């Protein structure tokens, strides 16, 4: 059923505002005059191109997809389909000026304040027709309880009711049987996309995309090796989040993404050669190597992260998005491609990797990162949406005790600075670091 012009126009309005906000960010990054600024600017240009493709698809009635980074985007990008993430705004534009107002709107709708903000916001957008309505949608029903509930609201909404939706079912285990099952779910997903968009999967093209994405993953892994250096060549401004955005969201298997990663590692290696670390401003140096075990606090990142580095010399050497096994895709047959895509998307993808299965992933990641990155302290921010993580706090604490590395659990909302005020978060971090003699 075709959507009316009015519904379509309204559905894309917020998306365009977001795009325009990113344009402002691009201008700011271009003015920075730093290597991080240049890398950010290139990333933002790639991101804006992806956004323009979606706007164009909406305005000109071309097929496009609502999808996720862990739905094997190699498949639908190789089919040439533009796509966006249903949960894109909280993860990418959480510091945009309209976010707090939208969060309040969600609360007023009766979604309370204990539901993950990354879930509340998309529900608010869907229910108020503030999100592009795609030709078909690939849902996400893991790693948390919120995600499947969000997609059930999507099916329930009157504008989205007729949007075909397919979600891959996630096993709780990660063994071969689980990966094969998930690979079958991905095969079904491919047939679903073909059925609803008219696009066809060309295996040669998929091989090409996977090989390019393998190249990206290989450089990413090399880059993460480089980050083990003391001092770390990059801080919060460049790392897991940016690598993730390019490799898994906006430029999957594209030559530009390879070029971006090549520049990234070149900058990092140059710094190591020069013996300099992440310090982009005069007057501070790396004093504490920190493992921030979650995604970045996107809603208030600029009010917190520079402070962390410049005031305390605390450098985030790794975080949840920079920390996974980077499995490569064996492109020798269709069978191996689907198997490896299933593994990459079910077992490796950031956040999915930690939160989907048993708590071993938390403790093993902490062990590996603390050891390999010479980490001084582990901070579990304790995002209000990460309830499985909240129930793993004792295990994380115990793991850190065994490693003899201090552990801090804060308790905050990564997207909403009013949940725990930034001052309170800062106080907790300072008290913690002081208590362990780091500042």
């Amino acid at each position, binding site marked *: 059923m075709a959507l009316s012009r009015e519904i379509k126009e309204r559905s894309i309005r917020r998306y365009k505002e977001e795009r325009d906000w990113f344009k402002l960010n691009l201008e700011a990054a271009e003015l920075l005059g730093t290597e991080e600024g240049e890398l950010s600017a290139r990333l933002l240009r790639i991101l804006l191109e992806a956004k323009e493709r979606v706007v164009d698809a909406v305005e000109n009635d071309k097929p496009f997809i609502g999808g996720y980074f862990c739905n094997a985007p190699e498949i639908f990008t190789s089919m040439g389909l533009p796509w966006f993430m249903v949960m894109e705004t909280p993860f990418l534009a959480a510091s945009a000026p309209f976010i707090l107002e939208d969060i309040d709107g969600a609360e007023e*709708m*009766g*979604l*309370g304040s*204990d*539901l*993950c903000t990354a*879930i509340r916001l998309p*529900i608010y957008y869907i229910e108020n027709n503030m999100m592009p309505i795609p030709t078909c949608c690939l849902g996400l*029903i*893991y790693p*948390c*309880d*919120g995600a*499947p*509930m*969000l*997609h*059930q*609201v999507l*099916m*329930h909404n009157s504008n989205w009711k007729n949007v075909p939706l397919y*979600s891959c*079912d*996630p*096993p*709780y*285990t990660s063994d071969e*049987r*689980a990966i094969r*099952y998930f690979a*079958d*779910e991905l095969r079904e997903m491919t047939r679903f996309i073909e059925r609803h968009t008219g696009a066809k999967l060309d295996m040669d093209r998929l091989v090409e995309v996977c090989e390019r994405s393998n190249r990206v993953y290989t450089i990413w892994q090399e880059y993460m090796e480089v980050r083990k250096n003391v001092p770390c060549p990059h801080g919060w401004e460049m790392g897991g989040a940016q690598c993730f955005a390019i490799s898994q969201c906006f430029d999957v298997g594209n030559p530009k993404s390879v070029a971006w990663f090549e520049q990234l590692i070149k900058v990092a290696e140059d710094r190591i050669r020069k013996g300099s670390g992440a310090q982009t401003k005069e007057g501070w140096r790396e004093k504490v190597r920190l493992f921030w075990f979650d995604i970045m606090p996107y809603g208030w990142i600029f009010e917190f992260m520079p402070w962390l580095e410049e005031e305390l010399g605390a450098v985030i050497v790794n975080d949840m998005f920079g920390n996974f096994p980077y499995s490569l895709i064996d492109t020798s047959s269709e069978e191996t491609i689907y198997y490896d895509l299933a593994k990459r998307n079910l077992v490796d993808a950031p956040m999915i990797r930690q*939160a989907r299965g*048993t*708590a*071993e992933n938390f403790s093993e990641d902490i062990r590996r990162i603390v050891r390999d990155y010479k980490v001084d302290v582990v901070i579990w921010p*304790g995002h*209000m949406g990460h*309830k*499985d993580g*909240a*129930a*793993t*706090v*004792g*295990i994380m*604490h*115990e793991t850190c005790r065994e490693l003899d590395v201090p552990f801090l*659990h804060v*308790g905050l909302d990564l997207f909403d600075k009013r949940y725990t005020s930034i001052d309170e978060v800062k106080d907790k971090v300072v008290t913690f670091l002081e208590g362990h003699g780091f500042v």
Partner: protein
Amino acid sequence: METRLQSNAFRQCAEAAGSIMNPHLEAWLAGGGKAAGYFCSTVPEELLAAAGYLPFRMRGTGSDSTELSDAFFSSINCSFPRHVFNQALRGAYDFLDALICINSCDHVRRIYDNWIRNVQATRFSTVMSLPRKVGERQVAWYYDEINLLRKQLEEHLGIEITDDAIRRAIHLQNEIRGLQRRLYEFRKRERPPITGAETLAVMVAGTCLPREMYKELLGELLEDLEEAEGGGDYRARIMILGSELDDPEFVRIIEEQGGLVVTDSTCYGTRLMWVPVDESEEDPVRALARFYVQSRPACPRMYGNQPERIAFTRKMAEEFRVDGIIGERLQFCDNWLVEHYMTKYDLREHGEIPFLQLDREYILSGKGQIKTRVQAFLETIEG
């Protein structure tokens, strides 16, 4: 618990529901029987029974604090697992030989991780992988999961769990489901002889008593109810929709205000027993897989069948001539928060039954607030 019911069978059920240990469980253990704890209504308890266990649905009954489990969970976790785990750390579950967990929700699934690291008394523990979707591929996945559990239990106990034993366990549980449905039939009356709080106690008892014996008790209770006088002194007929509700006291508070609870869709209520396991299926494990993934009335933890869930709610409300629905929810539960949001919308959209969302803690607190909100709700219903 307070009751007007003159029934020895009811008294025994209420006693069993009122604590973790009960005299019949004690006797079972003393006679050399073993008990297996399980989380959530999607663990196939029939398999545990076929292995010779007394299946015990995990509860936190009797807990008054979370002082021990607070080191493992956080303040944003649902109070149900926090209280159950606290009880476990206090040793209240040391009688379990086995614990079967499932990836039911973000809170409960972590009990497994914390349990294996901190509760030494349990000899066997595992976590099952329950799919989210409800299609044929998911039935096949869960079929394999149940067979895996069967193999693990066989190894652990050194026995063979035969198809016949599973069939017998299914048959017994289906008989129990049938009797429970008959119990609910009494509640359709204008003057039901049993209250909602009393019914809940009977349902909870069905998850912690030896099942043969529970079946006998249910039979006796049904006979007692034939004789019993009904109570007609209420302001509205209420349905409860929600989750892990095992505390009759919560229902009693609603009933004290004049809202007689006549039916439900909860984890200890109709969702357990409204539909039987298909006994005509040749492979009993396949029958269990299909039942737990597909055919039993689902909770929102399963994905994609909200239309069926709201249809079930409407069907219950209609059959039991319900005047208002109370959607209870444990704080921090994402599943039920969003489910109630959609239910409220659906009911309002069709100008149907009034709906009240009531957040609560697992161990009853804020009774005054619950009373006030229920009173206001009853006034709305009465117009």
